C-alpha cells in the first residue's frame, strides 16, 4: 500500500515563496525515494494542502489531512505562527508533525509529537556573530530588523542575546515593517551612528533592498544577517551591492559535500532554478522520515502506525544536504520532555563577488 504523508504549506499568500520552495524540496525527495524502490516496496504519496500562511487555514488543512485523508504524518506548516495554531491539533490526535521552516522558540514545547529539522536561530546566530566579530574585529554594531514579523523579530531577539553575551556594543536599533520599500531613513540614521557592522534580521524581500540602499547611502560596513538572508537570491536582488553579507546556516549552496552536490544538481535539473535553504531542509526532512519509515512495519492500523512512526523518528541519524543531522529533545514550559529540535552545526559564509564563501 502507499504511504500517505500530509504536506500543509503556504502555497499562496505572502508566504508562498517559502511554501513553494518547501513543496519542491519534498516532491524532489519523495520522487527520488520512490524511484529507488520506495519504503520497503511501498510508494510515498504526498497529499498537499495550501494553508495560505494563515492560522485558520492551517488548522483546517491539518484537520482535513488527519481526519479525512488519514495521512500517516504531516509536514508543515510554513510559518511559525501557523505552527503555533495547528500543531496542537496534531498533538491532540497523536499524529507526528514535522516542521521544516518553523524557527520560532517554543514550537517543540507544544508536545511530544512535534518535530522539526529547522535549526533555530538561537543556535545559529551566536555562531555567525562571533565568527564575523572575530574575523573583522567588530566592536560596535547597528541593528536593523523587521518588528512586525515573527521570524525577523525572533531573529532580532536572538541577535540581541548574542550581542549582550559577546559584549558587542549597539550604536542604534532600528526597525522596519513588512512591505516597506524605502529604508533610507533608518540607514541614514545608522550611518550617522558610525557602526563597524550592520546586524540585519530580515527576509530577503526586504533584506536585499536594504543592502542596496545602504550602499547607495555610502554605508559600506559588513552586514551580519539572520537565517532569512541565506538565499542565493541575494546576488540577483542586491546585484552590485551583495558583497560583505555574513550569514550562518546549516545549509549553504557552496557547501561541497557529496550529498549537497547531488541535491543541488537534482533540484536545478527538476525545477530550473537554484534551491534555497527552505528546499534543502524540506528535502532532508523527507529523507529523515523515510529512514524512520523503513525501520517500522506498517500494519494498516492507522493509530498503531502513527505511534510506531512517532517512536522510530527520534533515533534517526542522517547526513543530507544540510550535513549531519540528529534530533535533540526539547522541553515544554514546565521543563518536561516534549518535542524534538535539530542538532546541527552551522556553516558561516560571507558573500563575495556573487558567491557565498564558507568561512567556517
Amino acid at each position, binding site marked *: 500500500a502507499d504511504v500517505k504523508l500530509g504536506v500543509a504549506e503556504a502555497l499562496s499568500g505572502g508566504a508562498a*515563496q517559502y511554501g513553494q520552495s518547501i513543496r519542491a524540496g519534498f516532491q524532489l525527495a519523495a520522487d527520488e525515494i520512490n524511484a529507488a524502490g520506495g519504503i520497503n516496496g511501498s510508494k510515498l504519496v504526498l497529499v498537499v494542502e495550501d494553508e495560505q500562511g494563515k492560522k485558520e487555514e492551517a488548522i483546517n488543512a491539518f484537520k482535513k489531512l488527519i481526519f479525512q485523508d488519514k495521512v500517516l504524518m504531516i509536514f508543515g506548516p510554513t510559518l511559525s505562527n501557523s505552527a503555533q495554531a495547528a500543531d496542537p491539533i496534531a498533538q491532540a490526535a497523536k499524529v507526528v508533525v514535522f516542521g521544516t521552516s518553523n524557527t520560532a522558540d517554543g514550537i517543540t514545547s507544544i508536545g511530544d509529537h512535534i518535530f522539526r529539522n529547522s535549526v533555530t536561530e538561537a543556535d545559529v546566530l551566536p555562531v555567525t556573530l562571533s565568527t564575523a566579530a572575530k574575523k573583522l574585529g567588530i566592536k560596535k554594531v547597528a541593528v536593523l530588523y523587521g518588528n512586525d514579523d515573527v521570524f525577523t523579530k525572533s531573529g532580532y531577539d536572538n541577535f540581541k542575546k548574542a550581542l549582550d553575551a559577546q559584549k558587542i556594543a549597539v550604536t542604534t536599533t532600528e526597525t522596519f515593517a513588512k512591505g*516597506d520599500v524605502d529604508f533610507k531613513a533608518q540607514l541614514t*540614521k545608522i550611518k550617522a551612528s558610525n557602526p563597524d557592522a550592520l546586524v540585519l534580521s530580515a527576509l530577503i524581500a526586504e533584506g*536585499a533592498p536594504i543592502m542596496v540602499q545602504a550602499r547607495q547611502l555610502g554605508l559600506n560596513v559588513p552586514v551580519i544577517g539572520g537565517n532569512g538572508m541565506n538565499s542565493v537570491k541575494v546576488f540577483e536582488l542586491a*546585484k552590485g551591492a551583495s558583497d560583505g553579507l555574513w550569514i550562518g546556516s546549516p545549509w549553504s549552496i557552496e557547501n561541497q559535500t557529496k550529498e549537497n552536490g547531488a541535491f543541488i544538481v537534482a533540484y536545478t535539473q527538476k525545477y530550473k532554478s537554484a534551491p534555497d535553504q527552505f528546499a534543502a531542509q524540506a528535502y532532508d526532512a523527507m529523507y529523515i522520515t523515510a529512514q524512520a519509515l523503513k525501520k517500522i512495519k506498517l500494519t494498516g492500523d492507522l493509530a498503531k502506525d502513527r505511534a510506531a512512526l512517532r517512536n522510530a523518528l527520534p533515533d534517526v541519524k542522517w547526513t543530507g544536504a544540510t550535513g549531519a543531522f540528529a534530533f535533540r529533545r526539547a522541553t515544554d514550559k514546565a521543563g518536561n520532555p516534549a518535542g524534538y529540535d535539530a542538532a546541527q552545526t552551522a556553516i558561516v559564509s560571507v558573500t563575495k563577488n556573487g558567491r557565498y564563501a564558507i568561512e567556517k
Partner: protein
Amino acid sequence: MLEQQLFNALSLGSVYALFALGFTLVFGVLGVVNLSHGAVFMVGAYAALQAVTRLHLPLAGALAVAFAVSGLLGLVIDVLVLRPLRARNAPHLIPMIATIGLAIALNSLAQGIFGAENLRFPAEVLPQDTLNVAGLHVTLLELGIIALSFGLMAVLLLVLRGTQLGRALRAIAESPKAAALLGINVGGLFMLTSFVAAGLGGVAGVLIGLYANALFPLMGQPILHKGIAVIILGGMGDIRGAMLAGLFLGFAEVLSVAYIGSTMRDAVAFGLLFAVLLLRPKGLFGTVNERKV
C-alpha cells in the same frame, strides 16, 4: 544627516504621491475607491519586466509597455465590471467590493504565472550609481521619481484646470447626468480615465519596483494601504491633495524615524493622519460639499 533625511523624505513622499496620483484620479472621476489599483500597479511592473527580459527593450520602452498593459487592464475592468455596476445603480460600496475581488484574482494569477518569489529588473536597466549632490547621496532613480511625481501633478492639474477635457472630467466627477446633458461623452471619459489612471499605476509599479529592487505578486498591497491613506488625507480626488498628502506621509515617516524612533514610525504617521482628519474632516483639500438644507 538632517539634509539627507529631508531628501529621503522628499523621495519617499514622491513614491507615495506617484502611486496616489492615478489612484486619486479614478477616485475623483469615477467615485470608486478602486482597490484593484495595487494589482494593476503590480501588473505594470511585471509587464515591464517581460518587456526588458524578453523583448530587450530599454527602460523607456518598458515604461511604455507598462503604461499600455496596465491601462488596457484598467479599461477592461471599467468596461466589464464598473460600467455594468453603474448601469445597475449599485450602492456605493459595491464597486469597491468588486475591485477587491479583482485584486485577489489578479494577485493570484500573477503568482500562478510568475511564481511567488521576488524578481527584479536587470541591473543594466538603470544605472544604480549614487551621485553626490551637495553632500547628499542621491540616485538617478530618486531624482526621476521626484521629478516625475511633481511633473505628473503639474500636467494633471493643467489638464484638469485649463482644458475643456479637464473641465469635462470635473463635471463628470460632480454629476454624470449633468455632464451628459452638456454633450459630454460620459462613458467614453470614464473609459479614458480608467485607462490613464491604470496606466499611471503601471508606470508607478515599474519605478517603485526599480526603487525597491523587487517585484512580487503582492507588491501592490503595502503601497495600496499607504495610497488609500494618501488619497483620503488629500481629499476626495484632489490632485494637489494627493501630492501634498503623499509628501506629508513621507515626511512624517522619515522624520519620526529620525527623531522619535523607527518602532514608532507607523504609529506617528497614522496618529498624525488621524489628527489631521479630526481637524479637517474632508481631508487637506476636500471642500465641505454638502448642500445646505
